[in-house]
């Protein structure tokens, strides 16, 4: 029989946090992802102290130096240098800072706007709901990068506009989750009871409905960070995101494209950082979804 251990010992059942952590911990991939995310966060926080050089510092005696383990490389520049002598390792570390900033800022903006729109659509049904959901459908129909590049083309290239564009592209996911939660919760008895007791709409929204859609929102937020980092890097690669000399991984790849024949390290390492970071956030997001999904509870 599959009884929880606490049943036999008579101890109190584990609280929701411990239960969640137990499920999350069992997923090896999720734990590895979490460790990697923590490492990237540390890199980003302590970048100015960890990185051996400043990211914009050029060294005219060391153009396109290969990594230390290759012939011609030196341990003063462990991962080599780029075309104008900037240390690649330092730029990658500072790039972590930029990418995390992008991911968190975009998702925060998107979630807050998405929750507001979802709550409004769900509570004030009718025309408002139809208009909001149609707009979300259109944003979902249009290819995401296409919409983002058109927005950036209109507003002008730059990091802020790129972040705004990606936030718009991510919006529909949060609006849909929130609205679905509003619709399913408002028909339940406790919400009706609260309303009868005189609770206003705002209180209903924030106290009753919102906590119940927290779980899917958190999962979507984690996956959203990875999408945001990937999309911002794509925009940077196309020259529409962070502009040179910013040490953003996608922008670094754009600069490196012409050196694909001569200097493999300038192309390989920034992309590897993107892959590892995005993979880590996806693993964490998947782990969160499996741990928070009640249908999967054994």
């Amino acid at each position, binding site marked *: 029989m599959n009884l929880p251990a606490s049943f036999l010992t008579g101890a109190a059942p584990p609280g929701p946090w411990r239960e969640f952590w137990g499920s999350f911990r069992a997923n090896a*991939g999720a734990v590895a992802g979490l460790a990697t995310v923590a490492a990237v966060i540390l890199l980003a926080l302590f970048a100015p102290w960890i990185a051996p050089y400043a990211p914009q510092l050029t060294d005219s005696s060391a153009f396109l130096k290969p990594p230390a383990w290759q012939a011609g490389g030196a341990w003063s520049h462990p991962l080599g240098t780029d075309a104008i002598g900037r240390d690649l390792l330092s730029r990658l570390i500072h790039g972590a800072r930029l990418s995390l900033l992008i991911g968190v800022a975009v998702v925060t903006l998107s979630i807050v706007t998405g929750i507001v729109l979802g709550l409004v659509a769900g509570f004030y049904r009718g025309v408002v709901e139809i208009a909001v959901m*149609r*707009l979300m*459908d*259109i944003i*979902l*129909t*249009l*290819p*995401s*990068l*296409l*919409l983002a*590049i*058109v*927005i*950036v*083309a*209109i*507003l*002008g290239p730059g990091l802020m506009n790129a972040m705004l564009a990606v936030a718009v592209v991510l919006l529909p996911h949060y609006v849909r989750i929130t609205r679905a939660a509003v619709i399913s919760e408002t028909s339940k008895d406790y919400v009706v009871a609260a309303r009868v007791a005189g609770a206003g709409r705002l209180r209903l929204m924030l106290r009753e409905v919102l906590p119940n859609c927290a779980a899917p929102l958190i999962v979507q937020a984690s996956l959203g960070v*990875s999408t945001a980092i*990937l999309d911002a*890097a*794509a925009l940077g*690669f*196309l*020259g*529409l995101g962070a502009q040179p000399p910013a040490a953003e991984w*996608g922008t670094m*790849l754009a600069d490196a*494209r012409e050196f*694909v*024949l001569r200097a*493999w390290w300038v*192309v*390989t390492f*920034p*992309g*590897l950082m*993107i*892959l590892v970071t*995005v*993979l880590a956030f*996806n*693993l964490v997001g*998947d782990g969160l979804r499996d741990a928070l999904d009640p249908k999967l509870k054994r």
Partner: protein
Amino acid sequence: MLRFVFTRALLVVPTFIGMTLLAFFLIRLVPGDPIETLAGERGIDPARHAALVKAYGLDRPMLVQYGIYVERVLQGDLGKSMITQAPVVREFAALFPATVELATCAILFALVIGIPAGMLAAVRRNSIFDHGVMAVSLTGYSMPIFWWGLLLILMFSVQLGWTPVSGRIGVQYYFEPITGFHLVDAWLSGEKGALRSAAAHLVLPAIVLGTNPLAIIARMTRSAMLEVLGEDYIRTARAKGLSAVRVVAVHALRNALIPVITVIGLQVGVLFTGAILTETIFSWPGVGKWMIEAISRRDYPVLQGGLLLLGIVVMLVNLAVDLTYGLINPRISRSS
């Protein structure tokens, strides 16, 4: 059944209207005066400015301008490219087959590898193969495809010399573009080596573009198969003594493929997104590269028209997927 088709088709109309609204107003958001943007750095004298404003209808109320825009769109006039002066629709039609050819090969690659991999992973659950497929799939899903393309070029085109670096076909071949699809046209033309060249140019871009859909399709097939394999009728089939192959391939796969087909259809939007990046890396002359060039040249009619046209294509494909899903799964069409 007809009612289902009709209601689904009708839902397309508000989405179309919304897209035209978006395309119309997005361009109005461009900072600065549109006529001055058209004139560029040369500047424009006030009398000509006023005449152009009247000619483009920019002095009319916004709603009237929108009405004129929609009327033109419905007649197939999406304006002219500011750089080449060619109609946007004609440029799109010339470049679209290249993107379709690339996207088709990419999705074929994704299906041929993804569906069997997902199936096997589901059948051998929790085995090394299963974990391997999941790991590769998650990596493919997290991969920045612009980097993946550069890596593959580095490895296969530069180091090994197996595939060409860019373009659709070797410069020494010429044939009449009958369908616009180089694979078909090369084969029809009968020129020696042309088909081989076209195929060689397609290999790397198709793999790069198909990586993301491959990951999604493999995952989706695996989870759909797992769900189906747990059903009672599969247990019955096994109890009847049917061979494992027959149970999986005939009974399970058919039902597992239903959600997978929906996912395939919905990949079209993802494919266009990926095509923009893939075409840039491989210098593939399709609509993705066209849009990127339009941005750097500030060619707003192309941007506006391209966005609308691609949106319409995705919308129509989604409709087709919706209808197909309703046809395959009678529960959907009966309930509406």
